[in-house]
């Protein structure tokens, strides 16, 4: 049994003056410490569902259980101080300095000045903004990305166990968005908050979610599963359509390099060795090229047999090594590096730049093949149940 942090039971919202519910009988268990993403087409009720959790929108019926406690009827103001809240528009208080914006919830909770001040500085540090520079500034003096960081810091101020995020990176340019997403995932690795995250962007959902709820109209879950399951085994046509073309490519974003076998025993040489030794190494091996490493074991150049005819120092022969990736990177990142560097292989290095191994394009193709086989198996299983369809 998984440890459930938020339990939604038969949650329904019917707006006054309408007959059709915006959210109909949503039941869902949200596990502790995970990011659950609500994703769906606009108007599907995903935001309404999110906002019922902290009762910014009061449910018409149903129950909300937070960490085992029924909070459906508790004082909403007190409830909200226990739940971090980030919205797309951020909603920083324009007339209040950044530091005091972040201190909003601590002030509501009556923390003393020292503690609040220390916490504000800590949070500004965490989100990568120097407290001494930004504490006394006003929101209008910040860029969009910086404001969103402050929005996150403000939501984390009183260290709430739960965070609700409504398209938090939706209004930010793509480059900054990617950076903020990565920063936030790194932060979440440490914080282990329970997060409900709303987006309309399936790619963002796949990237951010430990689990994804794909919602149809009236917030009815079409599938509630891990990103891997959703990509390889979509529950129905709606999910398939929503995930869209390129599910395989998206799947590449889910596989990390450290999860697959890389070539570790390839031919390397050290810059400390002389030209003749290197030449003999290459001639004696089955490899067409040798990867030259520096004293720190960092890859610097590719050397092939004809390069040794040139009368140059070893570290200027051949071609510079390109397409570096870390084991934490995804296959999609590796593929991109290869394409950018026009290289057939990506060089895997650790965080200090030390050589770990090679990842060639065949390995990635095999990995894709494997996914397709799995997925094909899934569909074959479907068809065997209904032989008529196979005949048709």
């Amino acid at each position: 049994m998984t440890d459930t942090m938020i339990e939604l039971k038969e949650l329904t919202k019917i707006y006054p003056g309408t007959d059709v519910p915006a959210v109909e009988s949503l039941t869902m268990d949200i596990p502790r410490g995970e990011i659950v993403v609500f994703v769906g087409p606009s108007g599907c009720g995903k935001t309404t569902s999110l906002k019922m959790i902290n009762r910014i929108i009061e449910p018409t019926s149903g129950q909300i259980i937070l960490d085992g406690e029924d909070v459906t009827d508790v004082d909403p103001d007190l409830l909200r101080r226990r739940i971090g809240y980030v919205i797309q528009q951020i909603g920083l208080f324009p007339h209040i300095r950044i530091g005091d914006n972040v201190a909003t919830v601590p002030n509501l909770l009556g923390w003393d000045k020292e503690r609040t001040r220390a916490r504000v500085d800590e949070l500004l540090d965490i989100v990568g903004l120097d407290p001494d520079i930004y504490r006394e500034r006003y929101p209008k003096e910040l860029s969009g990305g910086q404001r969103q960081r402050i929005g996150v810091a403000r939501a984390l101020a009183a260290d709430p166990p739960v965070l609700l995020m409504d398209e938090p990176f939706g209004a930010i340019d793509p480059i900054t968005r990617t950076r903020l997403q990565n920063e936030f995932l790194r932060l979440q690795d440490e914080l282990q908050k329970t997060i409900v995250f709303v987006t309309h962007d399936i790619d963002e959902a796949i990237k951010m979610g430990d689990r994804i709820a794909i919602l149809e109209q009236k917030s009815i879950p079409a599938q509630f599963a891990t990103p891997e399951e959703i990509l390889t085994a979509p529950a129905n046509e709606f999910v398939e359509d929503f995930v869209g073309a390129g599910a395989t490519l998206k799947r590449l974003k889910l596989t990390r390099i450290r999860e697959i076998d890389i070539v570790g025993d390839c031919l390397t040489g050290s810059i400390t060795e002389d030209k003749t030794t290197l030449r003999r190494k290459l001639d004696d091996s089955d490899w067409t090229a040798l990867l030259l490493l520096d004293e720190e074991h960092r890859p610097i150049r590719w050397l092939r047999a004809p390069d040794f005819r040139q009368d140059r120092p070893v570290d200027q022969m051949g071609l510079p090594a390109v397409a570096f990736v870390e084991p934490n990177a995804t296959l999609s990142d590796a593929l991109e590096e290869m394409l950018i560097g026009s290289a057939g292989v990506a060089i895997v290095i650790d965080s200090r730049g030390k050589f770990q191994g090679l990842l060639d394009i065949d390995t990635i193709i095999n990995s894709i093949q494997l996914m397709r086989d799995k997925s094909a198996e899934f569909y074959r299983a479907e068809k065997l149940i209904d032989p008529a369809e196979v005949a048709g």
Partner: protein
Amino acid sequence: MADTDLASTSAAADQGSGGRRDDQRSPIGAFVHYFGMPIFLALVLLALYLWIQGQDLGVVEERNLRLDRLLAITRAHVELTIYSSVIVLLLAIPLGIIATRPKAKNIAPAIIGLGNAGQAIPSLGLLGLIFYVARTTDLLPSTGAVPAVIALVAYSFLPILRNTMVGLQQVDAFVLEAGRGMGMSNARVLRKLELPLAVPVILAGIRTALVLNVGTATIVFLTGGDGLGRVIFSGFQLQRTTVLVTGSVLVAVLALLIDHIAGVIEDVLTPKGL
């Protein structure tokens, strides 16, 4: 002279705010912004004084243009303006707040209707009606400043009410949602977010009301109150141009000065960061 007194008050107000905006305006720009109007008005008054000195004044003029009399009348005019403005503030701002609360949706049109009526009825006509009511009932005195203050309050009610409402309504809904979402109570959202963010618009309404009241206060002499209207009217009645011009220039200078002071106060009270 009346002017020196008032000019120095405005200079004091200016100094209070002089340093704040230095980062946004060049020193010369700031000086012109804060002192240009007072200096211009002082020059106008000086010109008026010199012009009067050059006139051949008769007994009537001498009596009407005595400095202590002009001072007393100007002072009465200012007091009337301020009293009526304070009363209207105390009425219109709370009503404006009430009218924008979701719970008071039903009474909002009534409040706005009241404000509209107050401004639509010409103040002179309103003063007549108040005078009539005062005469036929014993509810209020029919002479002096009281009927006039009522007329002024009714007349300047709308700008402050409307600006309070608009000011509160223009506050970014997402700022309020963020506040609510972090657990601020409705009262706290009003106090800490809505009102501070509505201040610039509310102040603009107060400024409008003050200027309206300076002008409308010229009619109080009709019910026997004091004010610069008396000087102007005497000038008309007695066909004394000097008296007429003096009263008219004084009321114009007063209106411009009050507008300027209100503008400076707007600068000072507008929250930083907006």
